[in-house]
């Protein structure tokens, strides 16, 4: 077997960025993206300071999260380990970008030029097929394949070797087959100690960092970085691809699914409540429409259905595709034979949304497993809250909101408990400091609006029957709004990516004790 891999020698890299520029030239990337990046990271305190240069980019993981989440099969893996993107299949959903823990993927929707307008050289190489789809380092697969076709050895013959390796002036980058024990890279990995970034995420990356044996001595672990300014390029940054529109899908989808479930449940007691099922479906549709506005290639969005066997985004799409006709027919004919399956589909839809987040391995706040019960619980709580609002609107028809109010408050309380559990898990497991700060800042508001206020309103409604209806509605609205805010904060604001971490900061010719660094994290 063959497994192509990159080896970066941290002892040799001087951070000159020549590989970055060479990649730009070879792959005609736009100024908005760097498939090969070299970071400049400082650790320690004056005067005991280290500064290290870290090449990074797509790690061509053996177990690539980007591929698992891809709904269209655009991202695939070759038998030799190279992770590829089929630009004709990609819909630009950016799920791969939030799934990648190495910030290696880019999505550019508008042409980007060095000087605002295209130069001749940019016109010559402009490729519209690359707009609105995901890009990343390809390990210069064209060169590798050319080499294999012509009997050359990738990594040794420049014509078959990635441009960044050819260009590296410090001979810090090496490329080769790690499955061949006699290859250049296998020898390097035998001769020098090495590590891989974010190894704890079990993605089995094909990007190895070697360093000097003198750095192997066990040493201190860097204290957590509490300064957001330092090592900004290496720190977890807010993911930019899933913005308010994506958050809108989670908000609307969760509320809609929850509301639909409660509408169906309530119809057991009072069939008139089924009417709330229509706005529930509208909400789900609105969420999906917002997604459509966000993706890079909406005209080929149907490709989202291509990979339900692996991708929760594809499953969400399939569930929605089935949910809408079943639920609509159920509501129209008011038959439990369709409404019950529709409610189950709505629950499954809600669950799929939760799983979409939890499978995004690149976002620490999302991949925490407790995000699934949190998203499901808040979806149901929001649904129950909206149901209370609906109940007020239907009140003249004699619908009684007491029981739904109790259910909503109980669900809000349950949601709060799950939130606490989720937050504690984030703290325990280590999380970007900024994520914790954002969630911490949100917490009092969440509890105030999502639990305390609804509880007080519900009690007030119980004690003052004259205003019970509006108070119940306000109680429900408060629960729903808190849930919406939670998901907006979780997706759009606290969705910081993984950042960069080094298991060893090398000493480079010296014997300084080794230490690790994980800028911007609450714990290393």
């Amino acid at each position: 077997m063959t497994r192509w891999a990159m080896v970066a020698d941290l002892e040799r890299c001087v951070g000159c960025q020549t590989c970055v520029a060479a990649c730009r030239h070879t792959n005609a990337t736009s100024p908005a993206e760097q498939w090969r990046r070299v970071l400049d990271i400082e650790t320690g305190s004056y005067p005991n300071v280290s500064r290290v240069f870290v090449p990074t980019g797509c790690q061509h993981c053996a177990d690539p999260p980007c591929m698992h989440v891809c709904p269209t099969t655009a991202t695939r893996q070759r038998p030799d380990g190279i992770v590829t993107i089929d630009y004709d299949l990609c819909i630009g959903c950016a799920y791969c970008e939030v799934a990648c823990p190495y910030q290696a993927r880019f999505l550019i929707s508008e042409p980007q030029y060095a000087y605002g307008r295209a130069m001749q050289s940019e016109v010559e190489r402009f490729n519209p097929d690359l707009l609105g789809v995901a890009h990343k380092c390809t390990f210069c697969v064209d060169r590798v394949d050319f080499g294999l076709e012509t009997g050359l050895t990738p990594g040794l013959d420049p014509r078959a070797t990635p441009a960044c390796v050819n260009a590296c002036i410090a001979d810090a980058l090496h490329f080769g087959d790690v499955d061949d024990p006699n290859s250049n890279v296998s020898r390097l990995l035998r001769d020098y100690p090495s590590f891989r970034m974010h190894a704890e995420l079990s993605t089995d990356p094909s990007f190895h960092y070697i360093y000097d044996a003198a750095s192997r001595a066990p040493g201190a672990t860097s204290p957590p970085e509490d300064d957001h300014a330092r090592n900004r390029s290496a720190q977890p940054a807010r993911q930019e691809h899933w913005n308010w529109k994506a958050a809108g899908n989670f908000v609307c989808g969760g509320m809609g699914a929850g509301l639909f479930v409660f509408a169906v449940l309530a119809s057991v007691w009072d069939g008139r409540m089924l009417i709330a099922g229509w706005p529930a479906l509208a909400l789900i549709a609105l969420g999906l429409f917002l997604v459509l506005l966000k993706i890079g290639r909406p005209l080929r969005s149907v490709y989202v259905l291509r990979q339900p066997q692996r991708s929760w985004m594809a499953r969400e799409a399939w569930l929605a595709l089935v949910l809408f006709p079943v639920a609509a027919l159920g509501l129209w004919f008011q038959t439990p034979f369709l409404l019950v399956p529709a409610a189950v589909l709505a629950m499954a839809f809600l669950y799929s949304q939760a799983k979409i987040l939890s499978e995004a391995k690149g976002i620490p706040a999302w991949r925490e497993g407790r995000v699934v019960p949190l998203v499901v619980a808040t979806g149901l709580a929001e649904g129950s809250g909206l149901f209370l609002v609906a109940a007020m609107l239907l009140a003249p028809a004699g619908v009684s909101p007491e029981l739904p109010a109790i259910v909503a408050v109980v669900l809000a309380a349950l949601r709060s408990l799950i939130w606490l559990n989720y937050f504690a898990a984030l703290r325990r497991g280590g999380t970007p400091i900024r994520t914790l700060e954002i969630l911490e800042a949100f917490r009092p508001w969440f509890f105030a609006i999502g639990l305390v206020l609804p509880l007080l309103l519900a009690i007030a409604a119980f004690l003052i029957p004259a205003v019970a209806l509006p108070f119940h509605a306000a109680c429900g609205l408060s629960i729903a709004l808190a849930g919406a805010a939670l998901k907006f904060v979780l997706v759009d604001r606290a969705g910081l990516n993984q950042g960069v971490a080094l298991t060893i900061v090398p000493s480079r010719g010296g014997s300084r004790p080794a230490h690790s660094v994980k800028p911007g994290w609450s714990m290393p």
Partner: protein
Amino acid sequence: MSTRKAMAGNERTTSTYCYQCVAGPDLLKVRVQDGIATEVAPNLDAAAVHPAGGKACVKAFGLVQKTYNPARVLYPMKRTNPRKGRHEDPGFVRISWDEALALVADKLNEVRAKGLTDEAGYPRVAASFGGGGTPTAYMGTLPAFLSAWGPIDMSFGSGQGVKCYHSEHLYGEFWHRAFTVSPDTPLCEYLVSFGANVEASGGVCGVKRHADARRRGMKRVQIEPHLSVTGACSAEWVPIKPKTDSAFMFAMIHVLLHERPRDRLDLPFLRDRTSSPYLVGPNGYFLRDRSTRKPLVIDKATGKAVPFDAGAQPLLEGSAVVDGIELGADDEVISHTGVKVRPAFAYLVDHVKDYSPEWAESICDVPAATVRRIANEYLDHARVGETIEIEGVTLPLRPVSISLGKTVNNGWGGFECCWARTVLACLIGGLEVPGGTLGTTVRLNRPADNRWSSVKPGDDGFMQYPMNPTSKEEWKSRPQVRSAHRTLVPLVADSPWSQALGPTHLAWKMQGENLDQFPPATPPDVWFVYRTNPAISFWDTDAVSKAMARFPFTVCFAYTHDETNHTADVLLPDCTDLEGLQLLRIGGTKYVEQFWDHQGFALRAPAVPAQGEARDFTWIATELARRTGLLKEYNAAINRGAAGVKLSGKNYDFSLPVDQVHSVEAIWDASCRAASAELTDGAETHGLEWFMEHGFRVKPFPRLQWYLYPKLVQEGLRFELPYQERLHRVGVELGRRLHEQDIHWWDRQLAEYEPFPRWRDLGALWESALARHFKVEIADYPFWLITARSMQYSWGGNVGIQLMKEVADSVAGHGKIVMNRGTAARLGVADGDRLEVRSPLNRTEGQVMLCEGIRPDTLLMIGQFDHWATPFAKDFHAPSMNALMPMLLDLTDATGSSADLVKVKVTRLKDAA
């Protein structure tokens, strides 16, 4: 998956080179699709002959954008607004080449008719070219035109003298033919680097050699006020107080001479290859034999004084009572009878007695234990006594070295540091031997293409040196150019490079004020500018800009509009790097770490046609020669080798007929043939077509010639160290000459001509000069402001290239004010705040970047990018220390240079979101 568009049209590759910085040239390949340059790649065909395997620096990757930059000046233009100045719109309008060249030629012919020098004696024509001579790699045959023209003032610097490794250039050439100095990195095992930022300024060869050395186990200690990229890649960072490096090195000498057994030093080297055993008379000159006038040494066997070359084994220490003479200034003979004298080495031991690590500690703000440890590590790694065979010759192996960076080795203190570094090399026998401290190129001595050839026996067993004369008869009392280099700086010699290595800031300074007893400062009638932007890159940029605005006729070879050509009368668009044609000498030993095992030539073949109406530089030069009636002289200069290669040799003659206009291709075809013949003793005569196809042609260069030591052994010569008798004498003579002219404003500089440099408190010198000149309370300016090289930008003139900005922004500090985090916390400054930085002269502002890798008393600005006219760069809103740097005589050393260093204070302007 592929990002490559399917090719509809044709595709080809062209070989060329990049020489945007002094650490080049790098050999490249340019991919051309449908006639458009799209990619730059290293020329890996040169992997076997190039020291860095044919790799190319990041700057080379900016050349595609440079070619197609929409802001390029693509047509000749002339100024329509006669008023000049920053706030005057030049009103450039497009004209034809014929009109543009006629304008320039008419002005030149007018000058020629008036006389080549003006009433003050200065050349009427001046020219300024960018850093390190790199523009010559792009200006085709312009040097032949300049040679044909006659006297030209090249002393309006754009950074030369104040931004270069100035003391190293002058003293390095003097002591060991080392215009630039480098460790023998492939063999070095321990390197003490005082601010030498080789990972930024050493080019691909430097980076590769040092990366290999690290992997080999070389330990590098980086001593500098901030943690540069080089410090980052070093085993240890020692944050020293700015401009105190000489104290550190003096203390290292102290440790070697006063704390370690004498036999740990390389005594044979000191005895046989330096002036250490020469006896020093009571007046500070060598004590000499009366009849032969040769310096005397004490014969170990007899205890008697004999001439240094009498075959005796001389003592390094001890004393003797001797008869003899001293040769003082102006041929004064001082006779001595029975005078007790000691060898120079003994005086050296005395000289550094008080310079202990404990003494250095408070000056450098570095613990004495650190200084002592580094000195001891230096000695312990020196392997004194060991040898290595190089190409069949057994040479000493001394794998330790000391390198010096900018600001350490220019301005005051540069002499001390260069001297101490070279003496430290001598003490362990590590000068110009494998593993040790080497020179890499020659610019002041001749011939310039080979260090060994430049070694000629001089007086007293030393190498000859083309010092500017200081005798009464020969001293040039009237400056020949506006930097007065031959008048004021004997050491700068008079090679084509010397003008730009004189006190170039004097040339600018004198445009605003006259110096007593000097001819009045006149602006040049015609000023040519190419690949330089002194309005941004020099010091006191306000004053420089105002001075150039007073120049009556300025011709700029223009790439884009910029701050200097804002005052131009004519803009001439030349072919840029990928468009022009030129042959360049490569290999041998060149700048910085360019040590090759090959030498030869590389062609800069046009990868793509010129954009707009840009013209090849050789065509422009030929037209200027034709229109000024200098065609014959111009062609003759080309034949002599002014364009890089002499067109005739022993077995070949490709000389051009001198009375004809030759095409660009014909000139370079002849050059290619001559180059090919030169490399093969006439056996091959490959022309332009062959070079177009192959890119370069080389032959082996003997590694033995990396080292000067074997040449000195061969010639029976010594390094003129540690005692500076000649400089001492020259200094006395220069002082007399100046005083005879009633010139006293250079007196401070005369104090530098010392036999052994004394330590000077440079911090106090800077502070007092600033306080006195600007009448400020210097305590109000608590920070030292320094700068550092950038691989992405230095020398490149590429500030307008988007890709360079993009990649430079990934290297911490670019375009920012770098400040220590603790200091910032004390001042209430947050990362990203905009600060005003004010020196006693001027102010600048920019965004602050906080880090731990800088001294609390120091600020750093990498890149001086306060452009206001250059497209793209004018939007950086970056700070520049250049505007803050005064051109003060008090801060000018004897070599005519000063250092990028000033005291500043900061004020927070506003929080940056």
